[in-house]
């Protein structure tokens, strides 16, 4: 077990190092530079622009050689300092991310868990019930092939504009003050629903299709036929099939996590939901090196941690993995 974990950990560390380096490099290789962009529309006294530009280039250390910027990036990273945002000057990147990430978590965690559970249940049902299968499968295929941003726009248009039941902007009403109050909570849920629904539905299709196919496969497997011939109940066979079918679905979760998080970013942009995606789009558009670095870093960490959790979960539910690393199975 320890061997399994330590092997995984090393892979994660290497991934982390590479990801961080790319994360540092990409914004700097984009054409254009942040201060000039922020000042592009600045109208003031003659020569005022130059004065500001030189002041801020210095303040952000952007006049340093690149290699020095890279090393000081690592140095500050280990002290937990992600720098100061340029376009939300002088707010620390850490603070911005801390304020935004809660909006990712409240959408992502319920959407991922619920769509996984519901999707697997529906898929399993679909696998044993021909009628339900015919009815639901086209819908699932439609869902899983929908890009997040497109589906988000459809949802926003239908429920937000056409029917008008839900707001399509922000995380709570414009006249609401955040706090532990009923009106805030209601307003929050009201705004939360559509982005959540988007994330939930698009993922749902994939899980259902996967599970349905697994159930069909498992039911025709030899052990299932053997059990059938022994006279085991349909229910029992199904539950064995489900347990076997879930394993690839867990792996699938690990594989698809980064896609899901990417989808969440797009969904947030459509609904102007102030999570990391919303922040990141603005950061990229403004070439805010430090904020881009910070948000990417958090997303990298988010994906790695989530993957790690899935790895551990896999180990728990699949004894073969556990045993193979502890030498109990040769």
């Amino acid at each position: 077990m320890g061997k399994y974990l330590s092997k995984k950990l090393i892979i994660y560390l290497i991934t982390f190092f590479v990801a961080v380096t790319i994360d540092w490099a990409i914004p700097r290789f984009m054409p254009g530079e942040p201060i000039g962009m922020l000042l592009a529309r600045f109208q003031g006294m003659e020569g005022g622009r130059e004065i500001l530009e030189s002041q801020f280039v210095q303040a952000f250390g952007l006049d340093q050689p690149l290699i020095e910027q890279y090393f000081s990036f690592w140095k500050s990273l280990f002290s937990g300092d992600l720098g100061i945002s340029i376009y939300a000057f002088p707010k620390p990147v850490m603070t911005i991310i801390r304020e935004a990430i809660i909006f990712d978590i409240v959408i992502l965690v319920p959407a991922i868990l619920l769509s996984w559970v519901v999707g697997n249940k529906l898929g399993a049902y679909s696998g044993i019930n021909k009628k339900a299968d015919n009815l639901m499968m086209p819908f699932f295929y439609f869902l899983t092939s929908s890009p997040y941003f497109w589906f988000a726009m459809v949802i926003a248009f239908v429920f937000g504009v056409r029917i008008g039941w839900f707001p399509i902007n922000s995380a709570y009403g414009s006249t609401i003050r955040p706090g532990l109050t009923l009106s805030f909570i209601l307003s929050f849920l009201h705004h939360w629903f559509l982005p959540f629904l988007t994330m939930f539905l698009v993922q749902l299709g994939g899980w259902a299709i996967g599970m349905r196919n697994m159930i069909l496969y498992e039911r025709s497997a030899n052990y299932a036929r053997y059990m059938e011939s022994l006279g085991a109940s349909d229910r029992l066979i199904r539950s064995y099939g489900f347990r076997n079918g879930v394993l690839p679905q867990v792996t699938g979760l690990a594989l698809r996590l980064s896609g899901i998080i990417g989808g969440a970013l797009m969904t947030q942009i459509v609904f102007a939901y102030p999570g990391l995606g919303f922040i990141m789009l603005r950061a990229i558009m403004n070439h805010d090196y430090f904020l881009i670095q910070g948000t990417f870093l958090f997303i990298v960490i988010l994906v790695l941690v989530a993957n790690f959790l899935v790895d551990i979960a896999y180990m728990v539910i699949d004894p073969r993995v556990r045993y193979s690393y502890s030498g109990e199975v040769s």
Partner: protein
Amino acid sequence: MKRNWALLLVLVLVVGLSSIAMSYERSESLVYGGGMWSPASNWNPLIPYTGGHPTGTVGLVFENLFHYYPLENRFQPWLAESGQWLSDNQYEIKLRKGIKWNDGEDFNAVDVAFSFLIARDNPTYYSNIWTWMNDIEVVDTYTVRFNFADPHYQEWKGILHDIAMIPEHIWSKVSADQLLTIANENPVGTGPYLVESVGQDRMVWVRDEDWWGNQIFGQPAPKYLINLIVPGNNNALGMLMKRELDLSNYFLPGIPNIKKAFGINTYYEDSPYMIAENTALLFLNTTIEPLDDRNFRRAMAFAINPKIIVERVYENQVTVANSTGLFGQAWMDYYSQEIVDQYGFSYDPATAKQLLDQAGYLDRDGDGWRDNLNGEAIELEVIVPNGWTDWMESIKVIADNLKAVGVNVTPSFPDFSIYLNAIHQGTFELAINNFGASLSVTPFSYWNWVVSDEIDGDLVTDGNFSRYDDPKLFKMIKAFNMTDDASPRAMEIAANIQQAMLEAMPSIPLWHNGLWAQTQSEYWTNWPSEDNPTGYPCTWGGKWDFGSIPMLINLKPVK
């Protein structure tokens, strides 16, 4: 068990009741968007860039000596009571009495002097004033005199309504290296609003009931100003249609078609709907062939039909620019019809072709496109930033127009940063831009940007992206800056500048982008309009002194 339920009920009630106090009363709140593009993170008036202080920091909290109302071309004394030139190089300001900072301290002449001196002793965006200003005298508590070495009369008009007054008793304690880096989270100003709260995608201001202007101008009607960051036009349009935004300062396509159905108001009932805000120009890189030839440039001006752009792209929400690019009363005071009659241009492809033929730009190899004088093919590219849909459609029209006279031009839409690099570094051929052509108190700001003399560095960032080099013209613009209002000499220089620019055509004025403003009257009425000119419906940064405060004062709550 019963007791638990009762407890829960009480708890819900308490939470429910307290929540009433925890939200802003909609009928007292003005909800708007379109001027804020980054989370509010500092209220430091010395950091004026995008992503610096949120719009309203200057205007709502920090105030100016004067306001300038462009629709009336009138200076409104604000913190100042009056201002006048005592001699050629001395300007005196008398301040209103009884003005207090939000923290209760008196506002007086020392603060005014300090707000300018801070720029002398530290690098700020207005430090360059001190290359032509000598010193400031505090004559008495309410009188300040500015002494100039080299008075820039035109520029000074802008400075009078532009520079924010900051409290000496607070900012004198800020160390020099922190002036441009402190967030100033609890800004102390003289203005009608205070910072109430900040969110990831919003900023709320609350009215200061003790504002000095209440007795003089009246009290602003909304108790709360809720400025939302709405990241996309589609969101803004949806929110306007759902009555969630009271005032939208976004460019929204289709407004002429939907305004009736959704009860949306614009400043002008019919076309052009919006107040003209700036001039969009086509910059021609004069350092490359054939754009270095003024005959070629002039021919281009005749070939382009901005009317098509106005009608098709903007649905008549903008107007066609005249040949000089001047608009608005303050600028039009210097407009010379005579010069335009003689040197102006208008859409006329026949003339364009004739000019090109005369100048020798003929199709030598018979491929259907005109060639350079040396026989090489002319292939030009016109750029605007990707995603700026109105401009993207516009340059398609421009390219078509130019193709129609035999000039091979293709539209291209690079990312904003690449676009910006291209115009700054001079690696573009044709580009639309308007960044420095906004309505102002003097055409000097326009000329000094369109044909700025700051073209010698590696980067050209202060306008004149065409890199048109004409020391004589630069000198005229400088001379205009030194002339007094509408004096015969000023008029003469202005006419000469217009002539020189039309003869050289370093850039082609095309249309006037609007002050995009759409309002709805679910919660607030009495919006500024053509028939009811109560203010300037604008919440963009740096423009609150153009009449947005009178708008706030004149708004009427529906409930």
